[in-house]
């Protein structure tokens, strides 16, 4: 490692921050760009499962709330792609890589949504899992990313509330409505347990080394289990893992997810991966004339 990189590393590891115009080692820039880009892709792809439900939302109020949530997520994607652009990768290149399957997005957005129950479970628990990771990113060594995360976390907190409201409405409704939530939980539990990634120790995680992330994957998952399993159980709902329990020392035990399956899902082999990417390709082609027109007009 050269002296300049060593100095940079010492700066960030002792809590120092980095701004857009600052010098940074190539490895740091590359890892950070890839990480924020995946985050941006996830926000953009994350609206597709919800978009499917705008027309099928059970009431006007739900339709409006869902549409607002979708607007928030697309807004997050725009803010995050801006961060990526300032790191040197243009938005067009990000979108090209996304639709060509060259870059990744979060595992949970590779699955289909079967019922309105899925919409509630996604907004409540997927957003809850996401906000745990996102809160840890407030402390990212790259300050522009941390600052944007403040706004994102603020908006995600509405989504959790919206999701919880949907779930509570269903579990206090008819038996069939309650069953929608239970079935959705059964479907989503595995992807949720995979959400925070394999339990790589913080000391071996290059993202922690560069202080892009400050939280080990397993810590995030434990925080999720501690915060939300009791909330699920108190509604009389069950989770499809016979091993799931809280030990006396506060650590949650669970059935180890199949990490190879997670790798397969995020590399484009999930149940809905192909369909989602095809839709994104289609919408990119459909709106291409809009960006060409507005950019030409401005020029």
């Amino acid at each position, binding site marked *: 490692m050269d002296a300049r990189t060593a100095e940079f590393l010492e700066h960030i590891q002792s809590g120092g921050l980095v701004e857009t*115009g600052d010098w940074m080692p190539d490895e740091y820039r590359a890892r950070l760009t890839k990480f924020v880009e995946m985050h941006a892709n996830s926000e953009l792809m994350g609206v597709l499962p919800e978009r499917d439900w705008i027309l099928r939302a059970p009431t006007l109020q739900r339709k409006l709330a869902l549409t607002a949530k979708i*607007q928030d997520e697309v*807004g997050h994607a*725009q*803010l995050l792609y*801006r961060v990526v*652009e*300032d790191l040197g990768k243009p*938005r067009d290149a990000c979108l090209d890589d996304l639709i060509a399957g060259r870059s990744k997005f979060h595992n949970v957005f590779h699955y289909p949504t079967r019922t309105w129950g899925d919409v509630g479970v996604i907004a409540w628990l997927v957003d809850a899992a996401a906000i745990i990771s996102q809160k840890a990113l407030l402390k990212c060594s790259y300050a522009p990313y941390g*600052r*944007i995360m403040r*706004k994102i976390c603020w908006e995600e907190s509405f989504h959790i509330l919206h999701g919880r409201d949907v779930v509570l409405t269903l579990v206090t409704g008819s038996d069939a409505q309650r069953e929608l939530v239970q079935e959705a939980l059964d479907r989503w539990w595995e992807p949720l347990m995979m959400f925070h990634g394999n339990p790589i120790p913080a000391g071996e995680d290059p993202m922690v080394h560069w202080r892009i992330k400050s939280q080990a994957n397993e810590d995030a998952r434990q925080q999720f289990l501690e915060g939300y399993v009791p909330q699920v159980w108190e509604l009389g709902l069950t989770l499809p893992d016979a091993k799931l329990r809280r030990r006396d020392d506060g650590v949650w035990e669970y059935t180890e997810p199949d990490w190879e399956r997670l790798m397969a899902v995020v590399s484009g082999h999930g149940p809905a991966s192909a369909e989602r990417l095809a839709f994104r390709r289609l919408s990119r082609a459909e709106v291409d004339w809009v960006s060409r027109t*507005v*950019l030409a*007009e*401005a*020029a």
Partner: protein
Amino acid sequence: MAVVFEVFRREREGAAMQHAGSISAPDERFAEIYAREQYGRRGESEALWLVPRDAVHEIDEFVDEFDLKYRRVDGYSIKERLKEARERAGTVQG
């Protein structure tokens, strides 16, 4: 070509403008629409400033060549002298 605009927002009346983030837009008309949506749609701002990034003149080096400590609080160490003054005046406590 899209232009990057830095967005500043005032959270409530009387507060200072603070940097909120940036947006990319083809021109000022689009920039206004994007900024309203991105930074004002929940009533979280009562005013926004949009500044093309190129118009921002940044200064990020502040060299203290002449050690101008007398302009800062750390330039004044009164503890010892206060003690001496109190002793002379005979007002030292307990």
